[in-house]
């Protein structure tokens, strides 16, 4: 085995910090929270999803295509409420745009 000890220790450290973040959040579920913090947690998915979507799209090399695909997907999702249709529709638009430009 060509594995060096410092590499394995680094990997162990990477695992430890990641696992700690995951576990500590899950372990705080019993906290009794005020209306404000309950509302805070309800809005977490919304703010997080927006943060996962926007930089990914607007900082991409082909952002005009991605933006258009996302716009079409948004329209489809709004009308159909179906995750599958949104992904398929957005993907199709993106692929067609890649073929023509």
């Amino acid at each position: 085995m060509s594995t060096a000890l410092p590499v394995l220790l680094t990997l162990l450290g990477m695992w430890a910090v990641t696992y700690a973040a995951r576990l500590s959040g899950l372990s705080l579920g019993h906290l009794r929270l005020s209306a404000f913090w309950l509302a805070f947690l309800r809005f977490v998915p919304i703010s997080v999803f927006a943060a996962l979507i926007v930089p990914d799209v607007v900082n991409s090399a082909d952002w005009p295509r991605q933006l258009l695909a996302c716009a079409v997907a948004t329209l489809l999702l709004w009308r159909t409420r179906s995750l599958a249709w949104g992904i398929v529709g957005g993907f199709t638009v993106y692929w067609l745009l890649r073929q023509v430009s």
Partner: protein
Amino acid sequence: MTTAASSPSFSSGFRAIVPLWLGVAPFAVAYAVTAKASGLSLFETQWMSLSVFAGASQFAAAGLFGQGAAPISIIATTAVLNVRHLLYGLSLAQKVPLTVGQRLLAAQFLTDEAYGISISAPGLNLAYLLGAELSLYTVWNVFTLLGSLIGALVPDPEKLGVGIVFPLAFLGLLIPQLVGRVPLIVAALSGLLAWGLSRVLPGGVVVLATGILGALAGAWLSTRSERA
């Protein structure tokens, strides 16, 4: 495929992630190729996918290993990129009661995608959460291995153009939540904030900072209007 079953089960959680495999698989291959180029062995490359299991930070670490960065700076980068999982755990724990053993297990496999799918699932339970988590774990690890073995033959995910599946999937999870004025405002604010922050900060920090600030704004706006 993505509509929630009447009673959430391991297999419905597992299947809900399947559309994302298309995006995940090429990135796992790309990670393995990057890791190999950085001088990591097949064992080390696979071990990182099995233990750390966090895509963006694995990419970053592979790059840093290649530059000969100090172990502490690799670990610190990983911590910064992954501390957002704390928010996911907090948010999930409000919906699913978990015993200590269940938390220890569920924590190992938590990801952006598993969180996103699970938090949007009606009647979420442990089985569904684990199904979603292990669905991604399976595809990430299988394709890490494939990437290590035959990576050079597979085209760059950038060229394949499959990365678009991630913003599309997160859009699919976001749109149904945008009912009413405050959620719309929070989404718009968060999107703008994330855009601005992404010009100066790494991705994991952007998600964490935006996640907190956006949700604070939402909590402030909604509790204020309830009181008024």
